């Protein structure tokens, strides 16, 4: 039995095409048009904000495509990085919302309310950097990436592979959740960091701000897709794929396998962190329920549904699963878990390449056939990689 994922990737690896092929430009255009034009025109503010929230998960799915689809490292702890990014942003916003003016009923004004309730009288040292916006913006990415670096360097240098890595990241997600919930004086505990109001004086709760943030979010997402595309098309991307399929051969060819894996994992962490920060901005709070195992695994399914090898698929997959979740759980809350469970199984058994796979294998060949039938095919075009 051949592995369909590997079979597909073999046709991808050797390719001397430019940055993006016409089909990919088209995909990008369709996605950008849908997210930037169609949705804002047709959805009301409420639904648009909802889509904005889903799109923040797409950052995570995007990271998973690189780190799982291309590099073969399945992380069940992406929620950790999503959460860390989100918490960094939330800490800044919370400090801004806890001005001395706003918190004058507290016994220590000027610190977040939950600290005051827990008899903390001075801002802890690790909250200090979040008084500054530029520093916060750096830390939003730096903290999760550093954390990812520590984890992955320790493990990949010792050649901890696939399943072990997945289980360990899962344990890390569990540990971090217990820690955040338990240290409520410093983290806001299970309630998370709530009641966030302004970003550098700009009220993020208003409809116009939410509208603007939606576009910032979508823009960042497209930027991340392009960055991921750059990695994927570069030599690096091909080494990642080679490594996933035959790690030892890459190692014997003289490459530092650990180094590439660490890079892929950190990149995924960075994407997740950006998503987390945008989540905080759009939703207005951050809580430990996004750090744990369940959200982390759910994010993996977004990437799997979209197609673990497709950057655009990751975004579509995220949108599709979340739309289904919202509409299903509104009408048949009981059926939703059955549906989600079946989706996991179906994606693994029947469609290992997700939506993107269906597109490539079913729809695109038919489309090209149609197009060809319409006009006489020029003989010179080589029909090399139909699977793409």
């Amino acid at each position, binding site marked *: 039995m051949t592995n369909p994922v590997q079979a597909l990737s073999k046709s991808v690896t050797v390719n001397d095409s430019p940055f993006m092929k016409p089909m990919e430009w088209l995909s990008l255009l369709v996605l950008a048009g849908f997210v930037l034009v169609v949705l804002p025109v047709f959805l009301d503010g409420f639904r648009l904000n*909802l889509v904005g929230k889903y799109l923040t998960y797409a950052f995570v799915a995007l990271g998973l495509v690189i780190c799982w689809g291309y590099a073969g490292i399945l992380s069940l702890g992406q929620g950790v990085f999503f959460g860390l990014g989100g918490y960094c942003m939330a800490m800044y916003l919370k400090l801004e919302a806890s001005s001395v003016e706003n918190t004058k009923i507290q016994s220590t004004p000027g610190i977040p309310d939950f600290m005051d309730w827990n008899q903390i009288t001075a801002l802890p040292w690790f909250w200090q950097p979040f008084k500054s916006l530029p520093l916060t913006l750096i830390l939003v990415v730096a903290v999760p990436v550093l954390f990812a670096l520590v984890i992955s360097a320790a493990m990949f240098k010792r050649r901890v592979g696939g399943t072990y890595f997945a289980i360990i990241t899962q344990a890390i997600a569990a540990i971090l959740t217990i820690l955040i919930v338990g240290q409520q004086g410093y983290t806001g*505990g*299970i*309630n*998370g960091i*709530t*009641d966030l109001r302004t970003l550098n004086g700009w009220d993020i709760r208003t409809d116009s701000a939410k509208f603007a943030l939606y576009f910032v979010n979508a823009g960042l997402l497209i930027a991340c897709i392009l960055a991921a595309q750059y990695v994927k098309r570069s030599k690096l991307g091909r080494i990642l794929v080679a490594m996933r399929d035959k790690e030892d051969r890459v190692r014997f060819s003289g490459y530092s396998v650990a180094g590439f894996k660490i890079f892929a994992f950190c990149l995924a962490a960075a994407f997740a962190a950006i998503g987390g920060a945008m989540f905080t901005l759009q*939703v207005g709070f951050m809580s430990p*329920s996004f750090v744990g195992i369940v959200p982390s695994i759910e994010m993996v399914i977004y990437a799997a549904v979209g197609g673990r090898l497709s950057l655009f698929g990751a975004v579509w997959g995220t949108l599709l699963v979340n739309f289904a979740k919202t509409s299903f*759980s509104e009408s048949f809350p009981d059926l939703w878990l059955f549906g989600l469970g079946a989706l996991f199984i179906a994606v693994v058994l029947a469609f290992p390449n997700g939506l993107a796979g269906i597109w490539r294998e079913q729809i695109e060949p038919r489309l090209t056939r149609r197009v060809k039938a319409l006009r006489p095919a020029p003989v010179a075009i080589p029909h090399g990689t139909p699977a793409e």
Partner: protein
Amino acid sequence: MAEDNDSGPRSALRRKLLMGLAGLPALAMLPRGAFAAAPATAAINTTKLAVTDSEVTVGILHSVSGTMAISETGAQQAEKLAIEQINAAGGVLGRKIKINQEDGASDWPTFAEKAKKLLVNDKCAAVFGCWTSASRKAVLPVFEQYNGMLYYPTFYEGLEQSKNVIYTGQEATQQILAGLDWVHKEKGGDTFYFIGSDYIWPRTSNKIARKHIENVLKGKVVGEEYYPLGHTQFNSVINKIKLTKPKVIFTDVVGGSNVAFYKQLKAAGIDLSKQTLMTISVTEDEIDGIGGENIAGAYACMKYFQSIENENNKAFVAAFKKMWGEKTVIGDVTQAAYLGPFLWKLTAEKAGSFDVDKIAAASADIEFKGAPEGYVKVDPNHHLWSKTRVGRAKTDGQFEIVYTSPELIRPDPFPKGYQ
């Protein structure tokens, strides 16, 4: 019968057609002239809420799916019962209450999202819902921003007060202090051991309890332990209890941990008929899972028990069982949730309006004499004055009420000297 409503044959006919035959029995139960008395919609709804000449829409927002569904079912059922009873008695300001239910799915952003939907899209005049503190914290900014009205049923840690929320459960001091006084006086409780699940409500409640024990009762807290939510191994802490021999074990363990804790306590030979144990997290609902034989003898500190003897409660328990089945049990939060729709109705009638600002302003000093727990009153701080009761768990899963505070206790969400 429908012709008896003297709001004109034409509108009666139209209404009959609209509601279909199913609506007839309910219509028949209306007191004479219910529609005639209804004030004009424009006068009672100046903020574009979902109020028509015959209907007012409210939201119910609880978890139907996910881990919290277990706890929130009772609250949601009580709210539906209350609304049905209000409708049967003629509705609010001449309008039937229509329910728009949303599922919070045990997920806090979903709660925020659905709260926004109920307020922005559905224009609900009031929302009854939320259970955990985390879900309330998540929806609070939404209710404040879009000026909605939330009736929140759970006993909680306090430290919060909002124009847009009516807290129908007890805040921590109301729930705990009278119970501690009682256990101190009646059981000679001077040493306490605290065990809780590790999150904000147990930690805050225990903090208040500790201050009270140390400063007022001059007792001692000999141990304080928190375990992660869902933890199921309590043998080590049970040994520590055996070592420290506290007079009173004071627990606020929640969820599945509860079941494990009481089973292991019993297995370790701690006999609750000899060792005093006071809990603030076990209601009739929880005993279902723990098993009455495992917890019999423990004292719970609540404002309501299903076994309260009064006419209101008898009627409430009978109606609840009729609607939701003979086997259902009613816990503290379920009763508190039942109060929400009634308090809202009384407030709307006092304010003569559905407008949220007017409801918020008129809420102070609203009295509800028909509450199953007995008379309750809304304080200007939007919490309820209520009594504290101590019940002793029996093997059949019910509580025998051993103490009822003589007076209503004033809600004090920001207790001085306890922070």
